[in-house]
């Protein structure tokens, strides 16, 4: 119950910041349109498939989740530096209720973001005559769920570790990393070498590949991608919870 009350507060705090709309919803959609236009300009015989709508839609949906990380990290760090958390530490709230209170609204926001992204992608796919199927989009959303947990975890982790000014910078590094070596903006498998090796150690490439699988109609390598994505998400979320609780205890020493 307390976590729900806290979640509603977090939801309102984030939604009442206009930047949330610009970055969480607007920016990924703008990127979707721009990249679709670029894709139309690339000759078919160039063999560049990364911006095709069936790759782009799940890629942009993944990219949008990185902004969820940014917003929750700023919110957590902001809460830590204001006296509001001090007041709440004196209340009967338990550490797990803070974590749930931060997580729940982000799950909802992520879902809204993914639905809007796939909705816009569907319209684009119809316009270019390459319709995305509803079932594939739903499966892709399901495949993205572990990544939602990963980015919420990363957001809480960064928000617990650094202040409000440093959090956006730190998140920007990961947003860029997720975009590039996650394979959203470039074909990691096509590049190969060290870049591909690094990409495959991090969870982003696996998360993006997992989200693209329903559109490819192939489940080749699904176990590896699923394990990497789920294990990383659970580890990061667990670490974020531990760090937040540790910081809370430290604040109260």
């Amino acid at each position, binding site marked *: 119950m307390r976590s729900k009350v806290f979640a*509603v507060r977090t939801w309102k*705090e984030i939604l009442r910041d206009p930047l949330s709309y610009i970055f969480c919803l607007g920016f990924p959609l703008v990127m979707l349109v721009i990249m679709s236009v670029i894709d139309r300009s690339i000759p078919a015989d160039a063999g560049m498939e990364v911006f095709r709508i069936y790759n782009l839609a799940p890629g942009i949906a993944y990219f949008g989740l990185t902004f969820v990380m940014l917003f929750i990290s700023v919110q957590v760090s902001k809460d830590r530096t*204001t*006296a*509001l958390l001090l*007041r709440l*530490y*004196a*209340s*009967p709230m338990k550490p797990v209720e803070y974590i749930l209170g931060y997580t729940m609204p982000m799950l909802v926001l992520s879902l809204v973001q993914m639905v809007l992204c796939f909705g816009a992608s569907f319209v684009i796919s119809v316009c270019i005559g390459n319709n995305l199927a509803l079932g594939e989009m739903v499966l892709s959303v399901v495949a993205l769920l572990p990544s939602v947990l990963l980015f919420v975890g990363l957001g809480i982790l960064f928000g617990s570790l650094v202040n409000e000014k440093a959090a956006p910078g730190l998140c920007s590094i990961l947003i860029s990393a997720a975009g590039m070596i996650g394979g959203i903006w470039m074909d990691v498998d096509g590049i190969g070498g060290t870049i591909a090796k690094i990409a495959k150690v991090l969870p982003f490439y696996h998360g993006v590949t997992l989200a693209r699988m329903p559109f490819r109609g192939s489940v080749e390598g699904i176990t590896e991608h699923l394990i990497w994505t789920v294990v990383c998400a659970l580890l990061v979320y667990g670490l974020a919870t531990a760090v937040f609780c540790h910081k809370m205890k430290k604040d109260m020493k």
Partner: protein
Amino acid sequence: MTNSIEIKGLRKAFGDKIAVDDLSLEIPRGSLYALLGVNGAGKTTTIRMLTGLTMPTRGEACIMGHNIVTESDEVKKLVNISPQETSVAPNLTVRENLEFIAGIYGIPKKDLKERVEQIIKQFAMEEVVNQKAKTLSGGWQRKLNIAMALITEPEVLFLDEPTLGIDVLARRELWREIEALKGKITIILTTHYMEEAEMLADEIAIMAKGQLLATGTPRELKEQTHTNRLEDAFVKIVEGTAYEE
């Protein structure tokens, strides 16, 4: 039970620095008790220990019969704090802030609306009720800060420098609000302002360098030091200790 708070030999050390040293106090139920001291006297640390925001290094304290360390969950249900810094959710309206804190303390939905309306009326906040907290003036934010602590109907309310940094009119208004609470709940007030302590407190504890130097009613403190003003009594008590060192 006659005492809301019983403190015995409470101590808080941060490494080598002792913030509160061997503090013992008994605070009667329903009284308004002021902790008076200069910066670094240990007032805020005392409040932080009593509200479970920091653990004592040694000693013990009970609030309404519950030990602050071993029964902290029980204590947290009985107390509330209005911290020194304004602690409101900036993007929430005044009403939403009140509903938020009431919800955190588990006030049932059926009582919540009535309680919020009552507090809004009590603090005459009707004109700003739908305004976001971040857009309020300092005085209104302070009022909201206290209202958020009161909405949970605590047995013991801690007011940490409640009128710090607000203008004289807003301060007078807050004094009236605090005075209206006297006798209903136990209030622990920390302040720098002698006038505030003299005007509001039933009893005053004077602290310096983490130690309790004197306790008594404003009148008793003036009599003890043969002064006519509380400020003179305070200076005499605090400087007396300083000279001894």
